[in-house]
Structures are given as C-alpha cells and as structure tokens.
C-alpha cells in the first residue's frame, strides 16, 4: 500500500471515529439533561473523596497569564 493511500484511509477513518465520539458525547449530554428532570442531580462527597477541582486551577492559570500581560503593558 502506498503512503498516500495509507494517509487518506487513516484520515477518513479518524474523521469518522472522531465525529462519532463527538456525536456520542452530545447524545449522552442530551440524555443526561433529559433524565435530570426526573432524577434531580445531587452530589455528596466527604472530605476524603471530594472531586478534584482542577478546573479552578486552569481558570486561575488563564487569569494569571492575562494579569501578567496586563502588568507588562
């Protein structure tokens, strides 16, 4: 098989799988939104098994980068 054929076939399969994953994510998301009306979402965690909040650290990083640039200016 030639390199170009391998590349094209790989890209085509990748597009199909990646977009299927996106459809799956969106579908699951919609399903969860739908079911959340019947099963109200309630999360409880003890101090020992609290979910890790790295979103906050990423948001903090973004703000820190923005602040650093503002300071430079």
């Amino acid at each position: 098989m030639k390199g170009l054929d391998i590349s094209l076939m790989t890209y085509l399969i990748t597009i199909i799988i990646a977009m299927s994953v996106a459809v799956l994510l969106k579908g699951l998301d919609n399903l969860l939104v739908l079911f959340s009306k019947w099963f109200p979402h309630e999360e409880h965690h003890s101090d020992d098994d609290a979910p890790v909040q790295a979103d906050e650290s990423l948001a903090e990083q973004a703000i820190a980068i923005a602040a650093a640039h503002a300071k430079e200016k």
Partner: protein
Amino acid sequence: MDSSMILNIFQGIKTMGMSFSHDPQMAIARIGLILLGMLLIYLGKKGILEPLLMIPMGLGMATVNAAVMMFDPLGLHGGMGTLFLEPQAGSALSSTFQAAGDTAALAANAAASSDIMYIMGIDWLQPIYTFTFGNGLIACLVFMGIGSLLDVGFILRRPFLSMLIALFAELGTIMTLPIAQAFGFTAKEAAAISIVGGADGPMVLFTSLQLAPHLFVPIAVVAYLYLGLAYGGYPYLVKLLIPKKLMQVPVGQLKKEREISSGEKLLFAVVICILLSFLLPVAAPLIFSLFFGVVIRESGIKVFHDLLSGPVLYIATMFLGMILGILCEANTIMDKKVLPLLLLGMLSLLISGVGGIIGGYVAYFISGKKYNPVIGIAGVSCVPTTAKVAQKIVSKAKPGLIVMPEALGANVSGVITTAIIAGIFCSMLSK
C-alpha cells in the same frame, strides 16, 4: 609512567583522541552534543524550552558524550561505550519473535535475553530502560499523569468544534507519511515519524516502539526536542497567520450553559475509553492509561489523583528526559537516517500548526465569527502547552480575554484524534 598508561586512566580523553584519529566526524559529533546538552540546560533554565524535560535531557546528553570509555561488552560499538545503558542490547530478541518455534530463532532469543541480563548487571540505567521504555510503560505512566490533569468537561462544551479543530491539526501527521516514504523510509518507519505531527510525546514513543523500534531513539529525541521548540515557535506562526484584530475575537456564549458534574464526566470517560479500546485494541494500553487518569480524577479518589498527578507524572517525566538525553550518544545520533528525521519532524509539526490555525479559521466562520481562531493552535495536542500558548497570545492581544476552556477542549480532542491515528497506524502496519 608512559602516556598510554595516563590515557588509560582518563579514558574520556583517550576515546576522544581515538575518534579524532579514526573517525573525526564522530569526535566532532561528541563535542557538538556536549555543547547542545549545555545549551538545552541553559534554555530550560531560562524557561525558553520546557525545563522539566530539557534540563535532565541536556545533562544526560552532555554527560554521556563526555563519558565514553574503552568498554563494549557486546562488541557493538568498535570497543567504545559507556556505563549508562545499551539501547541495542537484546535488539535481536524482538526481531526474532515472529520466528518463535524455529530452533535457530529460539537460540537467538536465548542469546539476546542473556545479553540483556548481562548488561543489566553493568549499566546502571539499563533496568529502567529495559523495563519501562522497551514495552512502552513510560509512555503509559506519563499518560496516566496527563489524564489525571485533563478535564473532559472542556470537550463537552463544544464537542464538534473541538474535534473539527483537532482533525485539522492532524494534517501534519497525515501529510508527512507519504513525504517520509518519498525520502526512502518504509511505510512503518514513515508512520512512526509522521506521528511526531500529533505533538504527543507518549504517543510518539508508543508508535515508534510498535512500528520502528530501530528508529525509536532518534524519533523520540527529535519529537521531544521539537515539542520543546514548539512552545517557543508556535506563537510566531500564529502571529504570522492571524491578524491582531481576529486575535481579539471573544468566544460566544453557549445557548444553554450548564455545569457538568463529575459523575457525568466519569460516565463520558468510561464510555469513550471502552469504545476506543474496542475499535483500536492496539492502542488500548495508551487509551486505558489516559482515561484511567481521567476516571481517577472524576471519581474523586484524592489519594490516587495526588499520586498520579504528582509522583507518577514527575518521576516518569524526569526519567524520560534523562534517558532520552543519555540515548543521544554520538554513535546513535550519527546514523544517516537521523538528518531526514530532523527535517521530517520539523515539517510535520509545522504542517500540524498551520492545519490547526486553518481549523481555527473554519471554526470562526462556522460559528458566525464568534470563535477566536487562535484556539486552532491548541488542536495540536501538546497538553496543556499549546492551550497555554493560545491563551498567552490572546491575552497579549486583548488583556482579560479568556479562551483557556475552549483551547483545552481542542487540546483534549487532539489527544483523542492522535490516539485514534496511532491506533490505526499500528493496526494497519504492525503485521
């Protein structure tokens, strides 16, 4: 005491002198690599290149080329070697696997195994190399650590746009494969080289070990060197291709913004892990490692999360950098296949960067000009480096503008698309 006796004490000088008289190119390469190692340490310290990788790599590279002595127990390097590690020990083992059952092949396997055991008793880093590099464990450990830092919620915000950008950012991987074949590489070698365009270190290690183990060292070194350079080079590419006005475009609000719970993220991670492993079993170890990290993070097991995101990730990264540096011995780097590799690796990352920016433009137009095209560079899946690059450029163009969540969505999608491509390459070409 004659001069030969003195030189036997200072064997680094002796081997350098011998290289100058028998093979001057090798001697020059040794000196060049010592200087390059020192430069990497300097650039790492200055923060121009990623210090976590470049400082151990630079010191390893400089030291291993200084410490060449009259020692070559397996007779592979013309009587010269080091006490660090021997990447070629047992190389006959993998090449004779397919012929298992054949008496001659079994004998060769036994000899290769015995070589590995012998070298492990001498070279101090050989056990780590043999037990973590040869089987891809180091790549999986790094991926577990990266997974524990990933938030799949960022893809869930805009799954289609994130995947679209990531697909454009794979153009380097896709286009480099036929170019590498035109350079005379086999399909397996070309695939292993082209995956550099995915900009995902562990994926490069894994694919090259699966498809072209004989090129593993130069491909891994080239990939990590360029991933370090991407951090410094991509901002220039973005500035060249995106006008300042478009860098200031804010990302539009979602129609129904809602908080995604950790339980939902856990469910998504489990489903995607099983689905991708089902489709691409060859890449399952990497896929499992990545989503294992995600699942640990979202299941709220704090002690495991701390273990993966701290000690596991940093110990694996430290040994990865150190061993990659030590593998940069002049003998290995002077292979005539390395120069085209340097060019192809750079080309692959360049095309991926341009592809990502094209993806950013496509997303900008699809969304009705409510998407910042700079986010496109984050489709190149060097987590979280390219996302940080995107945020840094946007912040400079318009202080206070935040694109980090969308950039991380494209980043995580990039990891998924690179894993898919690596899996397809390995499945299609490994037999």
